[in-house]
């Protein structure tokens, strides 16, 4: 009997390249993680940047083959706790450590399903009716707050919030339906 097909060793790359590859692969998941934990969007962006820098500095400590995203989350979580202490400006909502820990633990618990959620969301966005595009882009693409959107679309802030809330609920339902149908 002959040997089965040999599996060649993995391609070796230099650390920078390896880091960039891993980061590129997991960047979205990491960004979603930070944005989930940090209520303020600009804070979240800052943390992501400093997190990437720290990860690069500490990349030598990363064990190849282990879970990059888990390692990245750990570093990000520290940055989030640190930011809380050194906050230069007070965000609208600040999260307390016990809350952060509870949410982080929940993310880890459901971690496997989260990338499916992202993929499902992408599909759902494609199916979003066109008349909802503008609202979504104003709120998330342009990062306008409700008051600005209200002004721009000539609506009350309450009405804008209602529309946004419904939009998110519809997307959430769509994501859930997709996930259910794919596991059924």
């Amino acid at each position, binding site marked *: *009997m*002959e040997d*089965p*097909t040999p*599996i*060649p060793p993995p*391609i070796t790359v230099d650390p*920078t390249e390896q880091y*960039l*590859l891993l*980061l*590129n*692969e*997991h*960047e*979205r998941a990491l*960004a*979603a993680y*930070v*944005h*989930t934990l940090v*209520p303020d*969007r600009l804070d*979240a*962006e*800052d943390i*992501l*940047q400093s997190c*990437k*820098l720290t990860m690069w500095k500490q990349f030598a400590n990363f064990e190849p083959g282990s879970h990059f995203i888990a390692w990245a989350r750990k570093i990000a979580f520290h940055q989030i706790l640190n930011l809380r202490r050194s906050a230069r400006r007070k965000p609208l*909502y600040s*999260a*307390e450590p*016990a*809350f952060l820990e*509870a*949410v982080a633990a*929940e*993310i880890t618990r*459901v971690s496997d399903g989260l990338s499916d*959620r992202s*993929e499902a*969301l992408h599909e759902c*966005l*494609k199916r*979003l009716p066109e008349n909802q*595009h503008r609202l*979504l*882009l104003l*709120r*998330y*693409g342009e*990062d306008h*707050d*409700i008051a600005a959107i209200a002004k721009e679309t000539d609506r009350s802030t309450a009405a804008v*919030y209602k529309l*946004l809330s419904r939009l*998110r*609920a519809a997307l*959430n339902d769509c994501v859930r339906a997709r996930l259910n149908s794919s596991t059924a």
Partner: protein
Amino acid sequence: MNFSDHIDRSFDGQLSEEEWDALQQAVISDPELRRQYVEQRWLHALLESESGALTGRLSEPKERQTAVMKRPFVRLAAAAAVVLFGVSLILFSQSRPAPVVATLIQAENCRWAGSDLPTVEGAGLSAGTLSLAEGMATIRFNSGATVTLEAPSVLVVESAMKCRLVEGSVVADVPESAYGFTIDTARMEVIDLGTRFGVTTTPLGDSNVFVFEGEVKVNRDDLPEPKHVFAGKSLVSEAGATPQQTDQEVLRVDATAASPGPDWTAITTSTGRGGDIYVRRGDQHGPTGSHPLLMVKHTDLAPNNERRALLCFDLAGIDRASLRSAKLALKLEPSGLGFSSLVPDSRFAVYGLVDPDTAAWSEDDLTWKNAGALVEKPIQESTATRLAEFHVLKGSPNRLVEVSADAFVDFLRTHPGETVSLMIVRETGESDRQGLVHAFASKEHPSATAPTLWLQTNREN
């Protein structure tokens, strides 16, 4: 208190500080609310963090969604990062190329057609299409699953856990880390449950799965519920809904032909009293003399699939005493049977039949059963002489195989009688009973060159 409303309002600054604090406490103490918070917040976070790509996600046509994601989105923080990281990283985070989900780790004798992914060895692959015209390529998904693609095949890489086989065949080797790895085809979805398996499909969905080790789950449109297929079994679409044991190698696809050689004398198996045939041990059918392919296989795992080919050349009118060189040309053709990744680089032997009685086989009636000494193992020296050997590399294109050896010339010079008979035997076995069957064009092949004996004689002398 309706905290789900609290959750949503917190996304738009519609929550008072007190309400926010109450929400935090509730999330800490209530697991169900925590689950709900993460579910809703994750969606909001994705929208926030992928804002730069949002326009693209909304308006792009469905199929090419990952390919273009432009709209540079420069933020203060990103600008700061230029200083910190240098240009390359910034290119990464701004243009946000599709994430790499797999690596092309091996490409043997490959010719690619119409792929929108890089096709050099070592290339990182994002979601996209690989179209392999010739050869064999191995892809390692980031989940750990390895997929070997055999030409001609078209594979769409979707994620680290999923790919879609549009047509052709693949063998997947899935470690535990990639449990649940899925291969989709037009008509069925094969979900790995820790295994090694092969999948073949035509674009119309004539899809088959063969499990070599472990177990897979198959979802098929016409089956009310998923079928589990275990090692040694297959689920073949034409054979209905029951997984079964198959010895018959999987039927695959068809390809085309090539051209001959220099200015010698060419004698093919269709010249004069020539002929060609193959015999298969387990064959229930009659002689294969009019078959367009000469199938050859060696296997210890499914002995009934052992196949040998026989060629007869009419050398009438050739001055054999002055023969200077000789070579045998065989056109390798896809047999459509078996997976080449289950058969290593293969060695073949060419035998010259010396026993006049055995050499007098006829296309009209030769089968394994009446082939006598021809199919003995080992082949006796009184029956045939081993003249030459040749190799066919794994995944090699359907090329013309040329075999020449001094022993060839000697055999032809000294052989009595006007016709010579040669036998082709594969000496390399297979690692699974679904291994590739090699095939060469016979004289009945509609387009490819028949087995040809090229002879060079000393005309000048």
